[in-house]
């Protein structure tokens, strides 16, 4: 095995995705959130393409292209145009936990993910063993983004990061996942984002804010 085998490359790409998640967690500007998400999705599509090349599977090539077009370009552009520019979102002030605290929590979660799904506990035959624990960490960090941010747009991006983590886990763990199911997941994702876009802009009109912490009329 050469040092630049597919497995090492896939691990490196996973690390890049994890770092971009941290970057998003450590940022306060809406522009950055979307940019990091877009970049992360593009790296994810490269990772999928790598696995597709390794396995010679046409459906994974298709998945890589769809990921690039939908997650890397379509969704970020839509969020930017319809939410960030239209609602004039700049700085995210509705963060419940300080940036440094949430970065520390994120580091702990990453360590936890590594021990919970440590590469040594996974059986042989995986393409890249570290990617599974890295994707677990990304899923947890996506959840953390949703928890510490109270702004609805930021929560939406947190969910999208979580979804990216699931996809990375899927290609690392179960690269042969049936294409029809993956296509269905994509359809749901797109429909979900569209509906959330409508809701958030609707919420903004009604409440003149997209801050979920002020969504407390339903407290009882």
């Amino acid at each position, binding site marked *: 095995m050469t040092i630049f085998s597919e497995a090492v490359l896939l691990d490196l790409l996973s690390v890049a995705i994890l770092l971009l998640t941290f970057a998003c967690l450590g940022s306060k500007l809406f522009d950055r959130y979307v940019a990091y998400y877009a970049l992360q999705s593009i790296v994810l599509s490269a990772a999928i393409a790598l696995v597709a090349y390794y396995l010679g599977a046409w459906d994974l090539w298709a998945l890589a292209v769809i990921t690039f077009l939908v997650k890397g370009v379509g969704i970020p552009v839509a969020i930017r145009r319809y939410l960030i520019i239209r609602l004039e979102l700049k700085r995210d002030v509705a963060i419940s936990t300080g940036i440094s605290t949430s970065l520390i929590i994120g580091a702990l979660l990453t360590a936890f993910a590594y021990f919970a799904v440590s590469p040594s506990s996974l*059986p042989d035959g995986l393409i890249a063993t570290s990617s599974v624990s890295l994707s677990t960490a990304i899923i947890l960090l996506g959840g953390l983004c949703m928890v510490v941010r109270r702004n609805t747009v930021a929560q939406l991006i947190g969910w999208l990061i979580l979804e990216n983590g*699931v996809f990375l886990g899927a290609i690392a763990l179960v690269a042969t996942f049936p294409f029809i199911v993956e296509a269905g997941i994509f359809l749901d994702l797109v429909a979900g984002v569209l509906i959330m876009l409508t809701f958030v802009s609707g*919420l903004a009109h009604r409440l003149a804010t997209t801050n979920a912490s002020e969504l407390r009329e339903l407290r009882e």
Partner: protein
Amino acid sequence: MTLMLVILVCCLPLAGVIAASAGMRAKGIGVASAAGGTGAFAAACALAVRVLADGSYAAGGGTVYIDPLSAFFVVTVSAVVALAGIGSISYLCVEEERHALSRLQLRLYGISFGFFASLMLASLETGNLGLLWVLIEASTLASAVLVALEGRATSLEAAWKYIIISSFGVTIALVGTLFLYYSANELRLSPDQRLIWPALFGNAGALEAASLKLAFLLAVVGYGTKVGLAPMHTWLPDAHAEAPSPASAMLSAALLNTGMYAIIRFKALTNAQLGSYGNGILLVFGFASIAIGALFMVRRRNFKRLFAYSSVEHMGIIAVALGFGGVLGIYGALLHTINHAIGKCMLFLTSGEVMLRYRTTIVNDIGGVMGPAPVVGTALLLGSIAILGSPPFGLFLSEFTIVRAGFTGHAGLTFLLLALLVVAFVAFAYTTASMALGKEHGELLLPSAPLRFIGGLPLVVGLLALLLLGLWIPSGVNTLILRSIGAIT
């Protein structure tokens, strides 16, 4: 022929979508939804009869798969769709008359109601656990539109909470599905077969134990979010209270059951490989839900939230019954599923009729419904008695079965269950009795006579069905439940 029925079941509810897209008014959309739902129910019954006669049906390599368990859930959910469809007629017509809903809103209602129903029924008809996930998530999206329909700030807020919490939860269920797929690594199945439930169940002994455990846990947490198991239930009261009442009926009586169906599928695989591993987990989540549901029912001011917490409680009871396990436990769980579905559907439709008359959901603003609206008042009173598990209604029988199942091995837990049921009973009955009986007060706006008739129809049908199920379990239902137990053990 069977395939035809399968297609009819999941496509007939789309009648409402067609009517709405064709630009019909409230009456047309309502009647089309009701007809579609009733047709789907008839087709579902025919499908169940065929499955009982010919055994499980599979097509497309298991992509379409109907065994007695799916037939049972298809019948239950389509019954709810039919009742809620009929209930939609009076809701839409009255709100159109009062200009409370615009034409766009009417159209959105027809479209999302139809898609919601059809996606849920389709998810019960597939044997592919990946597609099951896709269809359940898609039905979440369709129903979120219904929650937001009335366009108040509170309903948008509830819809946002619903969609973000459910999507989060369901994504966790997707991770569970991935681990299940992974646990079938050793099975020498083709990739397309590795998510097909019957293929997995047939080889359950060879599933890899550690990842199967993880898959089950993640599925319970993920789909449990849809079921409304505590502590993942937080979206549920808001969404149920803010959605239009026929949609609340669908959420509570159909959507929650669809999530429970997914959990049952995962549990069957876990039981086959790991014995009673899954039971303890379901007991914990079940008891947490019953406790939260019962305690939050105490002195609720909003009666739709009261009904919603009662759904949390009942889903907890079903989870506990599954956790007790054994033939008796599963029998009780399935019987309770159909009873609760009919009872809660009918109660939410009743709440809709009350709201059409009083235009409020605050308990204290309503009193003596019995006087000006005897049918609605009676439905409210008897429906509450039924949902609380009193004889002679069906829920008494199913809760009794569950308690019996509990006493064979979990006596202490069963006493806890009974104590919590008493709390729920007092809290719930206190509130609804004061609404139905009590001194007459509150401003009243009666709908026209034909609408009152059509609005009362599903309430009476639901009550009669509950009474029937309490006095005598039809042999068809009994066989269907027993065969379902056979299919998953």
